[in-house]
């Protein structure tokens, strides 16, 4: 539970930080999509160059970003190995039951790069945007989905409440853990099954208390006139400024470059 880094925000005064969260969300999404179309070294070079330029502009230390990426290392490794050994094609080398093909090696390298850039781009976004603004952007960005009766406002509200309660619940987990340890519970002993079982006395009180909290919070929200998204105004409404338009234009130029490179090579 400790060291949760989802939506970790890095406070700084960069041009990326002040951008409208919708710009960052939309561009990151488009960036990830175009990554999956990139199929040659030139396109990857451009994509990587763009990502690193963004890291530079954000003033977030690269070290910090890379440290946050350790979590996906395992996933990347599995993907790379699978691609390396299981892609049929021209044989490069083989030992025992494994064969590495040229196509496999290419594929693996591409997948690794793709994953790396994908996580890099999303990290830059979450590091330069407060979770609050991100949920705001999601609410606005998903607004068209309301046509399909998707409860957009409710989803955004749920996300922001969840974010607010993560620290509270993790503190509470720690408290319960210590209380159970004081009564002789052992959380770090035995095999996987035993450890999983030892979590029950931790999770049950946590669940009970979360439900109580939820019901308290619902009452408090109602007392403060909450009645859904209808007719709601905001303290910090999202407004596009000139700089946001410029950002969109720069990104459009990058996108055009990517498309040209993918088409030509």
């Amino acid at each position, binding site marked *: 539970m400790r060291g949760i880094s989802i939506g970790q925000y890095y406070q700084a005064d960069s041009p990326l930080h002040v951008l409208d969260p919708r710009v960052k969300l939309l561009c990151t999404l488009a960036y990830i999509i175009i990554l999956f179309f990139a199929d040659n070294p030139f396109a990857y070079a451009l994509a990587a160059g763009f990502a690193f330029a963004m890291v530079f502009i954000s003033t977030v230390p690269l070290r910090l970003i890379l440290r946050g990426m350790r979590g996906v290392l395992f996933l990347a490794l599995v993907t790379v190995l699978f691609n390396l050994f299981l892609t049929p094609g021209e044989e490069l080398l083989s030992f025992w039951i494994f064969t590495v093909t040229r196509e496999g090696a290419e594929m693996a390298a591409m997948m690794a790069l793709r994953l790396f850039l994908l996580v890099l781009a999303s990290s830059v976004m979450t590091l330069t945007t407060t979770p*609050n603004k991100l949920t705001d952007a999601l609410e606005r960005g998903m607004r068209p989905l309301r046509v399909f009766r998707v409860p957009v406002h409710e989803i955004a509200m749920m996300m922001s409440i969840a*974010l607010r309660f993560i620290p509270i619940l993790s503190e509470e987990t720690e408290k319960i853990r210590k209380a159970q340890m004081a009564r002789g519970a052992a959380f770090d002993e035995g095999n996987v099954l035993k450890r999983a079982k030892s979590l029950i006395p931790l999770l049950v009180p946590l669940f009970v208390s979360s439900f109580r909290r939820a019901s308290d919070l619902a*009452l408090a929200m109602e007392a403060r*006139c909450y009645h859904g998204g209808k007719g709601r105004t905001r*303290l910090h409404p999202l407004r596009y400024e000139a700089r946001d338009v410029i950002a969109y234009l720069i990104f459009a130029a990058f996108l055009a470059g990517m498309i040209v490179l993918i088409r030509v090579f």
Partner: protein
Amino acid sequence: MPEAIVKTRNLTYEYIRRDAEGNPEGVTTAVDHLSLDIAPGAFVAIVGRNGSGKSTFARHLNALLVPEESAVWINGMDTREEEKHLDIRMTAGMVFQNPDNQIIGQVVEEDIAFGPENMGVPTEEIRLRVDEALQLLKLEKKRLDSPNRLSGGQKQRVSIAGVLAMRPRCIVLDEPTAMLDPQGRAEVIRTAHRLNRKEGITVILITHHMEEAVDADHIIVLDKGKIAMQGSPREVFARVEELRALRLSVPQVTYLAYLLRRKGLALPDAILTVEELVEALTV
């Protein structure tokens, strides 16, 4: 006398007690034919031990609970009319016991804005109200902090600011100090008095700490959903035996004076502060 901001007539609330299997065991009357009027601008303390019905009563003032028959009027609005619920909640704001479970925003000022946002107040006006509430509760420096980093007393002040930004005429504080340390408790009670005196906001303070009721204009003692006693603090605290029979404590100094008087010392009826006792003893 101006029209009462809170008026109840024969307010009754019953719920069915159930045993562990969910079979009904009997009916508990949490609030029993309660009738009272609270004048605008008053500071009223409602005291009672656990299960006296005080919290249930409080929830009726905010239309979180609605009686079956017309029994509660907030500024003349019948809480049974659902279309008036928003108006009622804007008139009578409510602060709850646990500050962690009533702060919605991840930033202090955003939480304070939550009420006005729900009311559809225009952005510029929200900004004004938030700044005003921050200033009134002396939270300007904590404006951009995460509520998680505040002390209990500060968190509860954020909750009060959130209610204040809705510009209510009356604030109901439902055991706002139950989860705070002594310092946080004093902080919250002081704030409530300041809002009452300077802003003219009606305060209804629900508590089981009798010390917190000492400075109220009027005390209502609830027991088993009924009014057991009411009057000025001096009138109520003069009845030490009755209060003790209701398992309510009196402030320590009041109790000391009571014991001294029983031993034959000539002391006035209800002594509420240490200073008063010192003065009475030195004359």
